[in-house]
């Protein structure tokens, strides 16, 4: 398209391009800097890092020196696995029931189930603490699984509902007219078609649980703390460089997981929709 390039158009390119570059820099820089710092030889978080060594990673993976960090990481994994598992079952059932329902009540129910995403996490965390202590429970991983289930389930419900509403009704009609029972249709037609949606949601829920601070903050104690809570403690206390090494491991893990999810279920595409 032939257009006169006016001053306005040139300034548009500069301003928009400049701000977008700034945005990419702000997004990427901290990740790069923390990775560089994790390989420092020194004992501080000084930039640029002095020397290059795997020393902090060796300390981090040493079973005797970093026992509490390992324990916290295992707690995080256990809570994330179970809360995601329960979340997948409950959210898939619920979206099978609600996704194609045109009633107003179904929309209300859907919004209600999504509401933990809007409610400040710290309020729900406090409510859960008050509730479970009133009922006489002591802090345990089971309570944390219950709390995480509520705040991570909406991710699964959202992606599953999205893939169910894109399902072609003609497929269900043909399955029915060929004599399939609803259970057979569910097992052989619906579930395979919505599986990528469920998987994408499960992945997001898993990551949200691993990352969760507000619920874990209230429901954990020294024995059951999760990785983010332990890292927070390390950051508040001494600024241990091992936090950089933990960050490095988490960055690498997120990177690999995301590549896998991108290849298998097209994660970024689902997050955009």
């Amino acid at each position, binding site marked *: 398209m032939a257009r006169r390039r006016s001053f306005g158009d040139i300034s548009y390119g500069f301003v928009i391009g400049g701000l977008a570059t700034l945005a990419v820099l702000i997004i990427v820089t901290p990740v790069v800097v923390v990775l560089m710092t994790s390989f420092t030889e020194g004992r501080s978080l000084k930039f640029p890092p002095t020397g290059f060594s795997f020393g902090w990673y060796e300390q981090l993976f040493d079973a005797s020196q970093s026992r509490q960090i390992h324990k916290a990481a295992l707690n995080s994994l256990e809570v994330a696995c179970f809360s995601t598992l329960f979340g997948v079952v409950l959210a898939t059932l619920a979206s099978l029931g609600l996704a194609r329902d045109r009633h107003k009540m179904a929309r209300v129910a859907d919004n209600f189930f999504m509401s933990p995403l809007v409610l400040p996490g710290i309020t729900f965390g406090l409510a859960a603490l008050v509730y479970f202590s009133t009922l006489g429970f002591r802090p345990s991983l089971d309570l944390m699984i219950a709390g995480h289930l509520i705040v991570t389930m909406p991710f699964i419900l959202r992606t599953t509902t999205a893939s169910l509403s894109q399902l072609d009704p003609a497929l269900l009609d043909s399955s029915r007219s060929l004599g399939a029972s609803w259970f057979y249709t569910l097992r052989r037609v619906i579930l395979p078609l919505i599986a990528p949606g469920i998987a994408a949601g499960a992945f997001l829920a898993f990551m949200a649980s691993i990352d969760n601070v507000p619920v874990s903050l209230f429901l954990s104690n020294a024995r059951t703390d999760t990785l983010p809570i332990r890292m927070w403690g390390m950051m508040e206390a001494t600024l241990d460089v091992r936090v950089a090494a933990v960050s490095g491991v988490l960055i690498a893990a997120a990177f690999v997981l995301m590549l896998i999810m991108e290849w298998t279920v097209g994660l*970024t595409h689902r997050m955009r929709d």
Partner: protein
Amino acid sequence: MTMTLAAASETGGGSLRRYLKLDAWQLALPLALAFAALFVAPLLLLVGVSFFNDDKITQPGFGSWIKFFGDPFNYKVIGDTLLLGVKTVCTTVLIGYPLALVYIDLPSRLQKVLIFIIVLPLLLSVVVRTFAWIVVLGREGMVNQVLQGIGIISEPLRLLQTELGLVISLTQIEMPLMLLPLISVMSRLDPNLRDASAALGASRWRTLFTVIVPLSMPGLVAGCLLVFASSTTAFISQTVIGGVRLIYLPLLIWQQSLVVYNWPLAAVISLSLVVSVLSVIAALSYMGRRSSGHLHG
């Protein structure tokens, strides 16, 4: 409701369903029960606990509410908390919107790379991202080293434990929440509209403000809501980067509940946080609904 499950049953294959008198919506019951027991009940109890005067939760009354709202300092904390959210929303829009504009013009191969760069920080733990900013903004951190290196400053700037540092950090930490809805809406815009606007002689700025911005309003509003809600309640970032001198509502909640063990007062503060955040969100989404989809000028 009749589409998925009920439809198949008409052929007789749904004998189990008919036997159990199962309607499709009843599949949502397990989740509803879990929500009743683990979400609604705790929140109702929290509201109940807020109407007690003492930390032993023995004397019912409005004492905790009066105590919290009788202290002018707390109004300042509420104001600071909401203002922090507004500032973070402004900075994420200021640099996030241009990035989304650039994104929709990129060829699809580069779009994939860029979306990866945007989503990766979202999947990184907030604690990791917060920690990264400590390394970047610290006294011996990258920003100070670079600025001193090129001679702009002689003394290291104090960036940690300032609101400026906190807003910069939150801009990155919350950025994906702004970008994903924006990009989702903007990728669906008809490119012909921009071409038409240009062909009719509008400058690119004019096209931006009269065509693209109004049409992308739903994504912009959604992004603002998410960023606002998340930044006002970002406890870890607020305490670690803001330090003890910058006080926001989440810190007060944490102090009252886990340090002082005054649950009624903590309940009052956290309900105030919910009400103030949700009312700003409701106002924003109302304005968004009114202004979305209209082309001006």
